[in-house]
């Protein structure tokens, strides 16, 4: 059946019952304001990195919530930590701190695995 691997469509949909939410919970614990994003997109529109790369800071929250954490580390390398997202956020989310927290927790997570 190895030839029919393309039929395995698990990456095409989000399987909510099998999500890895440890990282999300850890980040939320340290920066609770991350919980109340309304996806207005102000952060992405003003993002210095987002205007020159494909980086989308708003989607970080969604990726984390839907368990798509593999691509997260690479994605966050694009952030320059300028803090404009935090400045424009109408919900007063400390996004810069969120990014720092994710980076730190990914690092810890990796060290446990090693």
């Amino acid at each position, binding site marked *: 059946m190895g030839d029919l691997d393309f039929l395995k469509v698990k990456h095409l949909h989000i399987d909510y019952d099998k999500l890895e939410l440890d990282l999300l919970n850890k980040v939320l614990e340290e920066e609770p304001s991350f919980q109340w994003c309304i996806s*207005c997109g102000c952060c*992405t*529109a003003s993002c210095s990195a987002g205007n020159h790369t494909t980086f989308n800071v708003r989607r970080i929250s969604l990726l984390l919530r839907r368990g798509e954490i593999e691509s997260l580390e690479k994605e966050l390398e694009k952030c320059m930590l300028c803090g404009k997202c935090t400045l424009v956020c109408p919900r007063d989310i400390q996004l810069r701190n969120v990014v720092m927290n994710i980076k730190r927790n990914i690092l810890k997570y990796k060290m446990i695995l090693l």
Partner: protein
Amino acid sequence: MKKIVVIGAGIAGLEVSKQLLQANLPVTLIEQSSKIGGNIKNYAYLFPDFYNAEDLLNSYQYIITDPNLQLLLNAHVSKIDFSKKIYNVITKDGITIPADAIVIATGYNTFDARLKEEFGYGIYDNVITSVELEQMFKKQEIITPSGKVPERIGFIHCVGSRDAKVSNTYCSRLCCITAIKQAIETKKLLPLVEIFCFYIDLRMYGLLFEDLYLSAQRDYNIQFVRGRLSEASEMIDKKIQIKAEDTLIGRPLQMSADMIVLMVGMEASDFSKQFKYHNDLNVNEHGFFDPINPHNLRNLTAKEGVFLAGTSIGPMSVGETIDHARGTALSVLSYIKSN
């Protein structure tokens, strides 16, 4: 004879007065400006049926001549003295009016858009507010402040609403439908104009509001972009550059427009703000007066004999304001009867 003082002659204050006068009670109506009507004077037509706002206001003109009504114009209430059984309402000019019951119908202020500096109001020419656009409807002529017939207009939702950065975390809830109403009216005057509405959520809470939204898309080709304005800047030709994220496609978006219209939200009036640190009347964290509860005691304050009407308790449409004011009049009547 029991005496009732109504503070504010917007439609809430007018409706309460009208109902109480009908019951043959003497009313003193205090208004800070030189005319009755309050905020409804800013509007040309009302959603969702484009009813003429001036006609509605004119339907109250007759009460001015009622012998039981004492109308005080250009009068600012500076203090209410609750120390005696009969309260005293004191104006800045030193006039003292005794009152057995007081109705607070002090309405709302529109948000001062200059506080959102990144949107450029008061800095760039072609950034206007929804109130200013309404004045253009009254003249039936839409021209940008730099004197051009606009080819593209951006409507910016949630200006001063749902925004922790200006301490207004609540939704003003009427601006969404106002934007759609204004977009349609603009299209009627300028059929060739392109209109883009930048929104976070569209809150079409009224029965007929969703129909108007559908009509905006179907009959007037009004475009909707799901993304809040992040910042606006002025281009060399005085056009405004809009920066937002098109959140549905997930990419930053830039657009030039001849004019942007900021849908300013409703804020508590200066009158209610002055009671923020006052023990007698409760003002909530949004600056509006707090009724005893928001269900069946929406017209009453914790202070005996003091009643609330209209947008002094939070954003309301014209119809809701009039309904609420009628409820207040009924509460006042039963209070006066039982005392």
